[in-house]
């Protein structure tokens, strides 16, 4: 078995469990940080250094910093988070949905191993240059559609945050 993969997969699963069970907000965020970094290590293992760097820069370096900022703004050390979802109906629904999700992931994993056989990586796989070529040549339309989606979210955010002038 692949020791490197197993190590970081185990770390990310354990850290993920810690993230959702920790009652203290900041340690929970640190758990999420561990998940992000071990995922980046897995990307490195898959010959995708650029993706690994993006994972660290964007998720760990920007999004999580924003979350931590909100935690520090709204809570103080020693505050514990609320009890888990007390509503039994919601908890039941959550359990059913997570089982379905797990099944879907299982099907996807099975499907991938059927479709994709082990093969030689093309030359320059995962380098920034090839990444850019793919994104701005072959998948330009998708890229632009996503950017419009982000723009819409941005405009919506500004509209919601804007003070009423009248």
């Amino acid at each position, binding site marked *: 078995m692949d020791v490197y993969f197993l190590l970081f997969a185990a770390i990310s699963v354990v850290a993920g469990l810690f993230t959702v069970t920790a009652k203290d907000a*900041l340690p929970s965020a*640190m758990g999420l940080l561990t998940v992000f970094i071990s995922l980046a290590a897995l990307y490195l293992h898959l010959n995708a*250094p*650029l993706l690994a*760097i993006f994972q660290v820069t964007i998720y760990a*370096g920007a999004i999580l*910093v924003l979350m931590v900022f909100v935690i*520090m703004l709204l809570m103080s*050390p020693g505050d514990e988070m609320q009890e888990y979802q007390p509503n039994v109906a919601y908890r039941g629904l959550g359990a059913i949905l997570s089982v379905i999700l797990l099944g879907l992931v299982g099907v996807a994993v099975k499907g991938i191993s059927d479709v994709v056989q082990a093969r030689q990586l093309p030359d320059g796989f995962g380098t*920034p240059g090839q990444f850019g070529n793919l994104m701005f040549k072959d998948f330009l339309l998708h890229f632009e559609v996503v950017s419009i989606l982000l723009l819409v979210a941005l405009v919506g955010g500004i509209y919601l945050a804007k003070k009423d002038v009248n």
Partner: protein
Amino acid sequence: MNDWVIALIKVVFIWTWTLIIATIMTWVERRGSAMIQDRLGPNRAGPFGLFQPLADGIKLFTKEDIIPEKAHKILFNLGPILFALPAFSAYAVVPFGDKIVIGGKEILLQVADVNVGFLYIVAVGSMAVYGIVVGGWGSNNKYSILGGLRSTAQLISYEVPWGIVLLTTVMVYGTFSLREISLAQQGTFLGFLPNWGIFKQPLGFILFIVTAYAEANRVPFDLPEAESEIVAGYHTEYGSMRLGLYLFGEYVNMYTLAALMVTLFFGAWHLPYVDMSKFLSPFAYGIASFLVFFAKVAFFLWLFVWVRWTVPRFRYDQVMGLGWKALIPLALANLFITALVVQLTV
């Protein structure tokens, strides 16, 4: 096997070198501040007080290590480590000279020349904030939390223009490798200027140096530890060597940022108008390129000290206003103009 040994030597060398520089910088900071304020500064321990950092180190190591009773023990211990770790790992992709030939073997003076070197620095640099946040939160002290809060807001704000400026230099040189960027700065630009980044990106350099000071939490951007408002910010509760790690990490950060400035904007190891490799033996050239590079870095390290003791601290809203209303629009305009020029000239 031989390559592994060389890599190990390089890692150990740059690690030790960084530590020595950080140590000397504490002395430079104190003597420099004294010079600027017309005082003498520490001058008793050794010649010119040069052994002062050693005395400081012994003091920090032998002091009682106090953990506040109400602190979160794990986070409190983790904070300084999380702060120092990214600081020490960032230098891995920055060159410290061109190349040296020893025993017929060519050795690049850089730990790792990776094709995503540039982005690696951005990624590692964005991790430094966690050390401050974790330490501030773990201390369970209102001043520490305010320091952590300020540092997150400041880092998010200044990482945007910092990243855009880095992107602009990537556009100019067309590579992510810091070594290739250094090599591209040889020769002259427009016939009479050295072919250095600053002449191609003057606005970029100004933006970079301002955001670098903010990233390193240095005056005038040291709001996370503003002593006139929040005691000592995120490290209010820290003492002994834990505090030492925070202070040390700051100097290591400064060293990396100064090396980055030299690599991107001041021709790395190249002397203006003179190609050293033409008339020096390969071995001497290696040493010379290292010394030239370090001389430039030393100037920028001194600039950090110089600015700290001459420029007063900003108010908090001024820091945010400068970041969002001045630096980001300027960085975007710089990016746009550079993209236009690159498109029109290639």
